């Protein structure tokens, strides 16, 4: 019977992942790609997504071996408990830091576009409180919220992209295929790192019923997110040109401004569109928060997950206010993505999977059948 057993379906996890991966990265993605490959930046997105498929394969294989277990548990099985604990601690710190940066970016954007005079602390606190409310209700509730938010968020975003088409100037994308192989690979690598939220799958697989469909989950969500990112980047570069995209801090926001919705009586609709995009940030931050509390719960072997959400808040809040200006925020984000991200996205899953295979730990498909 369907009760408080915190199990979700694969469809729900797919939706959660799509919402999570689409959020903050899509805002700065055009700039990142244009910096490397100028007007061919969109090709990097394709390359990055393909690389992300590769990473997700390792992660999916890893979690398939350990259904019903979160990273904290199975890392302990693979590489002995203390090291597993250490790894979990690192991931906890990473989550907290990521959440802090994302909240800060969100706060900056809100302050810029929606509420210029409100102190940013207040915006951050209110978002944190909402995320706490969600995290306390458990993963099941989070899945349902994602199901509801998914059409609300993505349909307007897709509409924006559709309505941006008349403004596209193809010559901005030309000449095509001018980038060198080196640029392609390094750029794709950077883009693939924006899929860092895949590591949430290391944890969420424990809640999925049936548990061995993680491969399909990854594939579908990566495909959808990849398409969305690709179209966004293409649109942005096509409308603003390579140099224009580089100059903007939030090119996607400006994109929302220049499009003309037919029969709409709302002008300056970027504020409205931002509201829809904010849902995704809410989703990812509450995800980080929830899983941080899960890690802490498992580490101190407590039974109640709910109460541990609130103590994490001060850390995130203080960290998010630490960078002093927007450029420093951007640098932190880049550092987090480029230096720390690969460790969790690529290195750890791969190593763990390898070690698990060698030591023959974990359920194999023959055993399950």
């Amino acid at each position, binding site marked *: 019977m369907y009760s408080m057993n915190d199990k*979700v379906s694969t469809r729900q996890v797919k939706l959660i992942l799509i919402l999570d991966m689409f959020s903050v990265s899509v805002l700065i993605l055009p700039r990142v790609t244009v910096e490397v490959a100028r007007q061919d930046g969109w090709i990097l997105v394709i390359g990055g997504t393909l690389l992300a498929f590769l990473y997700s394969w390792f992660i999916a294989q890893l979690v398939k071996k350990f259904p019903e277990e979160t990273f904290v548990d199975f890392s302990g099985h693979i590489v002995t408990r203390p090291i597993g604990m250490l790894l979990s601690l690192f991931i906890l710190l990473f989550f907290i830091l990521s959440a802090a940066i994302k909240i800060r970016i969100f706060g900056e954007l809100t302050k810029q576009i929606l509420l210029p005079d409100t102190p940013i602390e207040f915006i951050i606190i209110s978002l944190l409180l909402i995320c706490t409310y969600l995290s306390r209700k458990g993963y099941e*509730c989070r*899945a349902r*919220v994602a199901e509801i938010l998914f059409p609300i968020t993505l349909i307007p975003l897709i509409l924006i992209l559709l309505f941006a088409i008349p403004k596209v100037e193809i010559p901005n994308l030309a000449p095509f295929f001018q980038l060198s192989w080196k640029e392609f690979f390094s750029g794709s690598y950077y883009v693939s790192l924006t899929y860092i939220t895949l590591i949430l799958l290391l944890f969420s697989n424990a809640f999925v019923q049936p548990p061995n469909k993680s491969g399909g989950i990854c594939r579908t969500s990566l495909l959808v997110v990849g398409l969305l990112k690709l179209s966004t980047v293409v649109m942005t570069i096509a409308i603003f040109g390579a140099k224009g995209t580089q100059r903007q801090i939030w090119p996607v926001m400006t994109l929302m401004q220049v499009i003309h919705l037919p029969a709409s*009586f709302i002008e300056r609709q970027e504020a409205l569109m931002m509201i829809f995009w904010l*849902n995704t940030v809410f989703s990812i931050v509450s995800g980080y928060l929830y899983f941080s509390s899960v890690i802490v719960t498992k580490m101190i072997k407590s039974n109640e997950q709910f109460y541990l959400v609130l103590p994490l808040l001060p850390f995130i809040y203080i960290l998010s206010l630490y960078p002093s200006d927007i450029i420093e925020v951007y640098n932190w984000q880049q550092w987090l993505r480029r230096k720390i991200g690969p460790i969790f996205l690529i290195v750890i899953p791969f190593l763990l999977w390898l070690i698990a295979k060698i030591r023959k730990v974990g359920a194999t498909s023959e055993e399950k059948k």
Partner: protein
Amino acid sequence: MKILQQLFGSTIKRKKKEDHTHDNDNKVIVPLTASLNENIRQIENLFTDCEDVIKRRFPIGEEKKVWAYIIYVDSMADRQVVEQSVLYPLMVGVREVLPKIEDIQTSLLDFIKDGGMTTAEVKNIDNMNDVCNQVLSGDTVLMIDGYQQAIAISTKGFPNRGVEKPDTESVVRGSKEGFSESLRVNTVLIRRRIRDTKLKVKQKQAGIRSKTDIAIMYLEDIVRPKILEEVNQRLEDFKVDAILDSGHIEQLIQDDWKSPFPQIQITERPDKAASAILEGRIVIIVDNSPFVLLLPTTLNCFFQSSEDYYERWEIASFIRFIRYGAAFLATALPGLYIALTTYHLAMIPTNLMLSMAAAREGVPFPAIIEVLIMELAFELLREAGIRLPDPIGSTIGIVGGIIIGQAAVEANIVSPIIVIIVSLTAISSFAIPSHSLGVAFRLSKYMVIFLSSILGLYGFLISMLILIIHLSALKSFNIPYLAPYAALLPLYNNDYQDSLLRLPFFMKTKRPLFTRPDQRIRLRRKDPRKKK
């Protein structure tokens, strides 16, 4: 201090009068003895000062008399039945019976019970608690000297309203019968619509002092057994003085008492209750209440009305959309207005904005206060309108709504746009078919207004998120509240046939998600090839 003690000391320190007749649960513990005189004494004691309880002692038989005693409540028991079917046979008819009373071999009690009276329902009872219960429920109890048992005779005939039009749920097309206050009438209304042996009616009593009858009706083979168990469990979980209305039961067994959203649906219409049973839900009927409870519920159920199923599917789907839109408007409209006009002036088209600015010249209050004033005034009007008798009620509607609103605008207390917004909101909240859900949205509206007035569109988003999170976490008897929009798998594959769109009948081949998983196929064409 001493005066206080004197005044209140007596009330505080007075010892509770020793009550030997009832135990802690208000059950009568006086024994039923074989001696009629002793029983009579106990009953007189229990029913002191109850002038409406009629007691009669009479002899059965001519020469060798056996004393009997009947108790009933005046006007609750049908006096005609008592006189004609109970007293007449016992007092008169028995004299014509051969053999004479002395020759009766079996126990007199059984003789009377089996053949002495001509009433339809008789029962043995063997303790005083049941005697009192039966008497107080409208039955007549007959006690015979020498026997430690009594007979309860069903003679219920209390006054009741009968089957009338349901006040709160009227439809254009569909039956106009509504439930009444009598439990039996209500169960009959449902029985008429489901003539299936698998329709079960389980009765319980709740409330220590009120001992209200509750009937639980369900279809045995399609209801989920775990939900049934849960319902029974919850009904036995509490001990309360009295259950006066189904609302009491609803609040006592619902999942989350903090939430303003109703987790149990109520209805006054038998056809709605019958269709709920056919969907695999459980109906709880409470005596003395024309509102029956339907559970478990999802949010979707509140947006369905009986008419949807009797009309064609296009109009039903269209009206469904309007209802969902109305729900959104009823919650969000004032907050959205405040957010846009106070924080995000850039988003309103210039023409409109200039008109609004011009219209608001001279209005002393900020937009938020205006909205709150008008909203609260509307609530006042609504409350007042409920209690007024019909002829005055509609006049007040016109007077209050139009004239006062107009006057307020002309006096420059509020701007005309606010009046439009607030009335639109109020109308939308009436468009929601279920009153209890409308109330929930009315309350959430204030939270949305509050948050929007502080943080603009961002606050609006936060309030919407709060609502979504709250609704997502809500469960009604372990069925997620937001099914079928969320959380369907691993329950079912789809249940969209009846949510936003009402699909045509021939497409509704499966029963909704409330039913047992193996009982889902509902409609089958007789011959798939024969399609007109």
